[in-house]
């Protein structure tokens, strides 16, 4: 499948300067996404998933100064160092975004229809009445029941699942080439989550969109993504095709995460598998492997030298762990 590459992130670092602290929540991250493909970015809270995706788009809260280094190529446009007006044109235009909490992203005082129409007016230059009829089409596209009536409703009148559909309608209004979705189903029940995932897959097929989907749920990764980047403390621990990384994880962190998922053959009342300890609180960059204090396989050098993300024996999978590469046989590497 030789699809066109839409996004290439190389060695991206993000430093955040606030009044009280300086932290580096994104520390040397690289990945790429092609048209029609979904890349999942998975990791525990605080691992830098949101900052990684939204700081480069200028979508950080005010009061934070952002410093970017590295490169983000969107098609042939370099986003690191791009001027704000050019960035504003991309946001909501050829790059659509979906946030975890649709309530905070929607204007509570305006109708659903108006909010969707605005995007088409802004980015596609449609007249107000053209945009209104396009809003209706978009609600149909995201398979809202009773779309005519929904246009006149306000966000608080909708359930969480329907609000997320509205967010999706807004995000795809300008037919973006890239959709960045930040935990779009985390606040939803599994039943509604399954509907939203099905919808995203369907839209992707129709629009040939590239999707970057942020989640902490391996089930969501398995359901929608073709490739996955596993983040830990601002760095990518493992990166590769979903069929490899989820089925035969190589990095000890990925192994621990996947091992911690309850399985159907776990006896009721049996102890839960998991990882010891907790992720680090970010401050000064960590010299060695950030996972070393929790890692059962760590050796002395893990605490001292930062492991590079390099290809494993399966060349499509890379992992930032010298131990697994030394053992030279990814999945057969034994835990405990």
């Amino acid at each position: 499948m030789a699809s066109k590459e839409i996004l290439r992130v190389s060695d991206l670092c993000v430093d955040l300067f606030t009044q009280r602290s300086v932290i580096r929540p994104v520390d040397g991250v690289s990945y790429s996404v092609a048209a029609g493909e979904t890349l999942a970015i998975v990791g525990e809270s605080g691992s830098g998933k949101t900052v990684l995706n939204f700081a480069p788009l200028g979508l950080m809260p005010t009061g934070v100064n952002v410093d970017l280094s590295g490169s983000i190529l969107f098609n042939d446009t370099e986003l690191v160092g791009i001027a704000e007006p050019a960035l504003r044109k991309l946001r909501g235009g050829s790059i659509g975004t979906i946030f975890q909490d649709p309530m905070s992203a929607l204007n509570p005082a305006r109708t659903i229809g108006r909010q969707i129409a605005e995007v088409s007016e802004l980015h596609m230059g449609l007249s107000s009445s053209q945009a209104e009829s396009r809003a209706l089409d978009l609600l149909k596209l995201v398979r809202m029941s009773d779309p005519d009536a929904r246009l006149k409703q306000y966000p608080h009148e909708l359930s969480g699942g329907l609000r997320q559909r509205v967010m999706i309608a807004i995000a795809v209004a300008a037919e973006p080439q890239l959709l960045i979705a930040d935990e779009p189903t985390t606040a939803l029940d599994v039943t509604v989550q399954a509907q939203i995932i099905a919808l995203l897959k369907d839209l992707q097929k129709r629009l040939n969109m590239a999707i970057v989907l942020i989640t902490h749920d391996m089930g969501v990764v398995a359901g929608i993504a073709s490739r996955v980047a596993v983040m830990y403390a601002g760095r990518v621990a493992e990166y590769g095709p979903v069929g490899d990384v989820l089925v035969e994880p190589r990095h000890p962190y990925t192994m621990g995460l996947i091992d911690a998922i309850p399985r159907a053959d776990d006896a009721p009342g049996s102890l839960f598998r998991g990882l010891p300890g907790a992720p680090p609180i970010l401050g000064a960059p960590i010299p060695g492997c950030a996972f070393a204090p929790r890692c059962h396989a760590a050796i002395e050098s893990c605490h001292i030298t930062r492991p590079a993300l390099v290809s494993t024996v399966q060349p499509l999978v890379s992992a930032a762990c010298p131990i697994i590469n030394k053992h030279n046989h990814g999945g057969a590497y034994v835990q405990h």
Partner: protein
Amino acid sequence: MSSTKSVLRVENLVTRFKSVERGKWVKAVDGVSIELRPGEIVGLVGESGCGKSTLGRSIVGLERPQSGRILLDDIDLSGLGGRKLRETRRAIQYVFQDPYASLNDRQTIGEAITEALVIIGIHDRTRQRRRVHELLDQVGLPDTVAERYPRELSGGQRQRVAIARSLAVEPRVLICDEPVSALDLSIRSQVMNLFLTLQKDLGVACLFIAHDLALVRQAASRVYVMYLGKIVEQGTSLDVYERPTHPYTRALLASIPSADPRIEATREVPALLGDIPSPTNPPSGCRFRTRCPSAVEACAVAEPPTVWVGPGHGAACIFAAQIRATEVVPQPEPQRLPQQLSA
């Protein structure tokens, strides 16, 4: 049906709220009966808005039920009042999803736990200190946490503190409302194992409210499945998860995504369409009928009674016996083809 005497019994509980629609009621809990035996972890699952929290809050007295009975060791709480009620109710403690909300940010952890000790009459300073350390140890936290403030702790640590504090009053029952939903996977296992250990060591019974079905399957010996204010299926975890009998339970279980991409690749249409209807105007008859693949006209007429398909295994569906026997959910003709994915 129970061989052991129950520590907590809820009978036909109804809790409703005034609706924003004038003169109408939100029937959040609408005739629920459940039971907990000593030292048992029992799961309560269902989509958000089905009334799980309202049921839990009603049991601990945070909501006032409109009717029904709550019995602790066969003592009917509704027959008690004032101080006697407060003292009896102390045996039931509530653990919130967000421990931050239940901890005072100006109190150290030690102070928060001591406050609970005073309630049960422990006033001696040395005894208080010893007990605080015992409790912290029980939930796997170091002594030094006693001097810390809630904001200085991680989410997982805060949840442990909240558990330590509820244990301080030596409860017999914990109502745990989504206690690990806000925690990351790797921390979640640690806190879940804490519940399992506490249950073994202290014999505390636990009503474990969660929307994460896989978690409940492993932690609970029995489970109740709730839909729109009613219990639709109940039984041992093995029965409910291995031989789900209510169409709702089956759809809920089928919706859990697998972390195995090979299994996900075979997934077809979502198992359940639309959202849970409003509890202000629930559907007539079986409340699940508007989303049920098996619904026939009879489902709209009368509320289906619980059919016992095995020891302690019940499902409130007119097809329960048939589904249990054939392991398939009937799809009556003509099949309702949903026009849209959302209701």
